[in-house]
C-alpha cells in the first residue's frame, strides 16, 4: 500500500536476498535473514522478497504469519511476556497482565513508541511451578521483581542512546 518506493529498504533487502535467489524451497531462511536485518519483516521488504524469489506475496505472507518467530510490526529491544498457559490462568495471570499493561502503558501485543519494550503473552513457558510467570528477555522474572527489572531496563536503555 505504501505509495512511495522505499529505495533503501529495497536495496537492503535485495542485498540480503542475494544468496537465496534461485534456491528452491527454503525461503524461510530468507525470511529469517530479512528479519535479522530489520528486526521485523517490513512490508516493503516482503514485497521485494516475493518479487526477487518469484513467489506469490500471498504465499510469503502465509508462511510469515504461520511462524510465531516472525514479526510484521517493529519489536521492542526488550520483550516482556506474560504467560497465559493453563497453570498461569489458574494462578491469576489475567491480573498480572492487567498490571503490566498499566505499568508499561502498553496493550497486549503493543510496542512502545521508542521501541524500548514490547508486551505480549505466551502460552506456557514450561515453569508452571512458578505460575503466574512473566518472562523478560527470555529470563523468568519473579513476580515481585518485575517492575524493578523493567525500570532498570528503561534506564539502561536511555543510557544507550
Amino acid at each position, binding site marked *: *500500500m505504501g*505509495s*512511495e*518506493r522505499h529505495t533503501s529498504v529495497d536495496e537492503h533487502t535485495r542485498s540480503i536476498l542475494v544468496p537465496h535467489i534461485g534456491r528452491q524451497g527454503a525461503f524461510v531462511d530468507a525470511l529469517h535473514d530479512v528479519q535479522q536485518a530489520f528486526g521485523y519483516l517490513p*512490508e516493503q521488504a*516482503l514485497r521485494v522478497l516475493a*518479487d526477487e524469489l*518469484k513467489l*506469490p*506475496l*500471498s*504465499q*510469503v*505472507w*502465509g508462511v510469515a*504469519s*504461520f*511462524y*510465531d518467530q516472525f514479526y*510484521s510490526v517493529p519489536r521492542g529491544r526488550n520483550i516482556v511476556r506474560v504467560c497465559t498457559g493453563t497453570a498461569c490462568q489458574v494462578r491469576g495471570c489475567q491480573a498480572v497482565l492487567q498490571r503490566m499493561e498499566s505499568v508499561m502503558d502498553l496493550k497486549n501485543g503493543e510496542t512502545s513508541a521508542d521501541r524500548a519494550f514490547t508486551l505480549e503473552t505466551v502460552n506456557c513457558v514450561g515453569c508452571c511451578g512458578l505460575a503466574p510467570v512473566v518472562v523478560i528477555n527470555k529470563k523468568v522474572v519473579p513476580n515481585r521483581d518485575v517492575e524493578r527489572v523493567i525500570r532498570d531496563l528503561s534506564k539502561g536503555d536511555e543510557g544507550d542512546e
Partner: protein
Amino acid sequence: MKETAPITLTIDGREITVAPGTTIIEAAAAVGIDIPHLCYCPGLKSTGSCRLCIVEIEGLRSPVVACKRKATPGIVVHTDSPTIREARRFVVELLLSRHPRECLVCDKSGTCRLQRYAYELGARADHFLVEYPNHPVDDGNPFILRDPNYCVLCGRCVRICHLQGAGILDFIDRGLKTKVGTPWDRPLDQSGCDFCGSCVEVCPTAALIERQQRGRGREWELRRSTSVCGYCGAACAVDMHLKGDEIVRTSTPQQVGYLCARGRFGWAHLSHPERLTMPLVRENGTLVTADWAEALDAAANGLTAVRGQWGPGSVGGIIGTGVSNEVAHAFQRLMRAGLGTDNLDTSLGFKGLDVLRDIHEIYSGKRATLEDIAGADVLLVIGDAARRSPAIWPKVKQALASGASLIYVGFYHGRLAKAASVWLRSRPEAAEAVLHHMAATLLRLDVEGGRLPGRRYGDFRNYRTALQRALTKPVPDPEGPDESDLIAACTFFGDLSRKAVVIFAADGITRGTASAAVNLAYLTGRTERAVYPAVSAANAAGILTVLGNGKAPAESGSRGTPLFAGKTLVRGLYVLAEDPLSAFPDSERWREMMGKLDFLVVQDMFLTPTAALADVVLPASSHVEEGGSFISAAGQLVRFDRVIPPVGMGNPEILAQIGARLGIPRLRDVNDPTAEIERLASNCTAPDSKPALFAPSVSHFVVEDTPGISLVGYASCFYPVHDAKLRRSGFAELEPYDGDGIALSPEDAEALGIVEGVEVVALSPHSQASARVKIDNGLLPGVALVSPDAPVALALLGGSWPLGPVPIRLSVATT
C-alpha cells in the same frame, strides 16, 4: 515405462474401466457415484486435506483418500460403508463445532456442501465443544462478502485464486487461528483483488458469497440460463441464476470457468432504478413520457422529414459496439434501405478500427483462440491486452503453469512483467521499434541456418530493406531493452518447434505496432492461430462485418468524420446504444454538432447526456434480453439466447416497428438474418490471401524529442468504471478518483513535488484537464497513465486515439 492399459476396478459393486491416472473419486463420478467431498473440486488440483472423501478398499486396513488415490487394477472400493460413514460424520461434526448454525437465513442454504453432508450423515452439531472463531468479516467492497467464520478451510478459493485470479489468497496464521486471508490480512479491495469472483464460485459454504445475492433468493428458487457477457471481445459464457426475471447471481457453465469482474458482477444495471422503461418525446422543449406508438411515430416521422427536406445524405446513424449482429443488421438495413443513407458510424474509429481492419487484411490465417493461448509454449504479450480483455489472463497463467515462456513488451511493472521470462521494457511510443528490433535480431540469429520461413515470402526483400532503413534510427527509448534481452526473447520466440501466440489489444496499440507484431508471427512461419487481437468492445468484429457487409467499411467508423465533415451535413441522427457526449473524444465538438441537428433519436438504457438532448428517447434492451450473436475477438460466431424479457419493447422490435413505418415491412424477418450473418462471419475470419510481410514504415519511428512525461491510455485494472452499465452495477465504488485519476511513477511525482491525491492540471497538445494524482509503483519514470475511456483520457488524448502517447505537462492546480 508409463502404464497405458485401461484399469478395471469395482466401486460399490459396479465394475468400471477407466484410463490410468484416474482417481477413485473421478472413477466413481463417471458412474454417477458422488463421493462426499469438500476440498476436492473438479478442475483444481487435489490437496486431500478435508478427508471427507475417504473410502474403503478391500484388503487395506485403513481407508484411503479418494480424491488423491489413483485407481489400480482389480481393487474393490466401498464408498458408503458404516465405518466410512462414521468417519465422515466425525469430520463433519468437527467442522460444525466451529461453524455458525445460521442455515435458516444463510444464502448458501440449499447449495452448501457442509449443510448437505451434515444432513446426509446425520451429524450432530453439538457433539464437540462449540467454539466459534469470531473472525472479522470483510464487507468493504461492492461484490464479495467474505465471512471467514463460515470457512471450512477446504482451500478451493486459494487454489483457484492462484490458478486464474490475482493470487492473493492463502492460508494465514496457524492452529485454531488458521484462516484464509490476504497478505497482512487486509480486505480484498486493498489487496489487489481482481474481483473475478472465481473464489466465490467454488466456495462450498457461505464464507464467500456474492454480496448482491444477499436475501434475494436461494438456490432452489432460482433457474439457470446460459448467455454471453457483453463487456469485451472474449465473449465468455455466463450462466445467469434467475429468480423470476431478475438476475440474482452468475456463474460459469464450465467446471472451473472464468469470468472477470465485469462478466460476473456487471449486471445490476439491468434492474437499476434509472433504467428507462418508457419512451420520452420532447414537447415544448422538455422530454415527457410518451406511449410507444406515439414515440415510434415521432421517430419515424422526424427522420423522414429530415430526409424529405435535405435528402437522404442528411440522415445518419451511430451504433454502439456492444450490440448484437442481429440488431446491427436491422439498424443498417433501416438506415440504408429505409432512409437511403450510408452514413453509419461507431466508436471503433478511435477504438481500434485501423488495427482491426489491418488484421483483417493482413493476417491470412485463422486467428488464435483463448484455448490456443492456454496451450501455447511461447507467448508474446504487447501492452495491456490482458486488462482490456481480462479472459486472457487466466489463459496466460495456464500456459505459464505448463511451462510456457512469456515475453512481455510494455512499460508496466505489473503481473505480466513479473511473470515474464523476458521483459522487453518499452515506453509506449517505443513498442513498435522494439518489435522491429526483435525481428532484426531473429534474422541475425538466423543468418547461417537461413531457416526462418518468412525468408521465403515474395515480399521478404522489400521487408528487409525497409526494416534496415527503419532501424538506422535508434530505439527511441534510452531505458529500452538491451541486446541480451532481445536475444533471450528471440531464443524463445525463434524456436520454431514451439507453439507461439502473439497477443495485443486492437484498441490498445498503434497500427505500426500491430503490423510489426504480425510480422514476427509470419517471419517465424506462424501463419495460423498465432495472433490474438483482443478488443475491449464486445462485438467490434461483428459490427465491422455487418456494417461493412463483410468488407472493411471504407468510410464508416472514423471518428464522426463521415457524419459531420465534408459537404453533407447531417441533420437527422439516430443513435443506438452509444453516448458520444460522454464516450467520444472531443465531447465539446459533439455537443456543438448535436445542437445543430434538426432531429435526434437516441435509443439507450439510460438517460445519458446524449439522450438528454434527443427529440425522441427509446428505451433500449440488453443483449441478454434479446438473444442473438456476436463475433468474438477470435473471429468466432458466438450465439446466445434470450435469458430475460426486455424492459419495454426491446431493440429488435423497436427497429422492426420503425422499419415498418419507413416502408420496410420485412425488417422483422431480417431480424433473424442467421444465414447472412454466418456468411459474413466466415468471410471475416479467413480472408483468401497469402501470408505477406509488411514493410515497416519509417515514419512510425519519428518520435519527437520530448523530454518529460508521455501520457498513455492504459488499462491498469480490470474494470473500466466509466462504462455507464458498469457504473450502475457497483463498479463506481472501486475507483477512488471517479475517472479523473492520473497515475504517475513515484520518481516523477517526487521530481514534481506531487503526492497522492493532489489535484493537477495536465496539458496535452489536444487539451487541458484537471486530474487527481495516483502514485503507481508499477510505472516506469516518464510515463503517466489514465484509464482508457475515462473523461480525462478522452480530453487529453483526444486526437491521438487510441494510445497516444502524448507529451504532457503537469502543474499543481491552484484552488
